[in-house]
């Protein structure tokens, strides 16, 4: 069994095993994780974090792989966290993103980790940020988090990155679909992948228009980042260089503003996640509120009545009830 000091030491020394183990601790909410993080925390903050999201099949893994190739060409090291969904039926997951990144496996400048989204308790974003912190402390120039953009938990994951890249592709609905899904709000850079496929031009146009409309609405306010729309064919590596240039531009934009404040704001979210997760575990586990809720409902009280009773018990007299 390893202890936190050993793992932290391993990360400082650049041992990939130690990094791998620390990410496992993050995933399992292992009690040794906080101490290990504390020990390497001064090293966190050097990596530029890129979130990549988009609908299933848009080409996120392929684009992430192409990004890694381009970063390596520029002699930058890169850590990749590839998140795939956990089956709600079996609790298992098939993590296949590596298939499209396998050429990178033997490159010492690249580290790839697959993560399953796991339960519904919202631990995903917390674990993903923890894993990114570990990779950051390990010393990668860039950390890329890739996840399918389907729900709140996934938005939380990419939202924690410095630059969010949203990947779309033609044939999966028009630009209106993208606007519906809230994809424009989260994006710092939009990529239309599979640009060689019919309909790509149309999607480019729709997105550019939508982005432009947004920026008109915001005019007059402080300096705003104008979201670029880039065409790419990730399988051929086309458009990737341009994408990286826009990521760099976004970085300069943030660094010219208040990067540290933005990062701290995102850290606050992480504090909330840890608190929420621990409270959830504690209250519904050892404190036995699940049983209490059950017995309350047996007395045919409404869910609100039972909730009020439990809240009063948790928060004491400080809370107005009834």
């Amino acid at each position, binding site marked *: 069994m390893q202890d936190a000091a050993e793992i932290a030491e391993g990360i400082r020394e650049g041992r*990939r095993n130690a990094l791998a183990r620390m990410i496992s601790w993050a*995933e399992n909410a292992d009690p040794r994780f906080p101490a290990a993080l504390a020990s390497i925390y001064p090293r966190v903050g050097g990596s530029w974090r890129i979130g990549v999201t988009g609908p299933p099949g848009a080409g996120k893994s392929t684009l992430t792989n192409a990004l890694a190739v381009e970063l390596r060409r520029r002699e930058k090291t890169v850590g990749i966290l590839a998140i795939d969904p956990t089956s709600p039926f079996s609790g298992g997951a098939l993590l296949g993103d590596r298939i499209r990144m*396998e050429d990178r496996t033997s490159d010492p400048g690249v580290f*790839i980790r697959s993560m399953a989204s796991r*339960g519904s308790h919202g631990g995903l974003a917390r674990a993903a940020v923890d894993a990114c912190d570990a990779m950051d402390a390990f010393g990668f120039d860039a950390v890329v988090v890739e996840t399918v953009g389907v729900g709140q938990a996934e938005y939380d994951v990419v939202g924690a990155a410095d630059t969010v890249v949203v990947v779309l592709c033609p044939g999966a609905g028009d630009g209106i679909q993208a606007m519906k899904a809230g994809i424009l709000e989260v994006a710092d850079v939009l990529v239309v992948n599979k640009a060689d496929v019919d309909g790509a031009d149309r999607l480019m146009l729709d997105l550019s228009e939508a982005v432009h409309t947004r920026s008109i609405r915001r005019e007059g306010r402080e300096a705003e980042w104008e979201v670029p729309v880039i065409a790419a064919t990730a399988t051929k590596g086309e458009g990737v260089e341009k994408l990286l240039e826009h990521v760099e531009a976004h970085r300069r934009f943030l660094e010219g503003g208040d990067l540290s404040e933005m990062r701290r704001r995102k850290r606050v979210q992480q504090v909330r996640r840890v608190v929420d997760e621990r409270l959830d575990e504690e209250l519904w586990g050892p404190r036995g509120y699940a049983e209490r809720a059950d017995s309350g409902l047996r007395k045919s009280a409404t869910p609100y009545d039972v909730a009020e009773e439990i809240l009063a018990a948790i928060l004491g007299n400080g809370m107005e009830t009834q």
Partner: protein
Amino acid sequence: MVERKIRVLVGKPGLDGHDRGAKTVATVLRDHGMEVIYTGLHQTPDQIAEAAAQEDVDVVGLSILSGAHMSLFPRVREELEKRGMGHVLLTGGGIIPTDDMAELEAQGFAKLFGPGTPTDDIAAWIKSTMEARWENEEVQT
């Protein structure tokens, strides 16, 4: 602490273009609640071991139908050991004669499965073996 999941890497070493078996096993293990990393076709032992290390898996399962198991399987084991991954539960399957199976098992492969093995048996074996290991770990600490 979150419920611990068994992480398995399913690998196909060497020049062997048939991965229906590997994919079937991967899917079955997923359906038994495991987190399965499938790395695709034509992997070198080096790539498989490195992926296993980065993914910090508990189990590595190799599938091979090409007949090169006696040279490739031991090399995967060596590469794993080189990376401090000697602790992983090493298993595999494919067209492997029983004599070879016995020899590989003597070399440190925990168990090998041949054609016709009910897939649920593989899942059950991995589960019970890992659970026993973890219980053992807890006793030791």
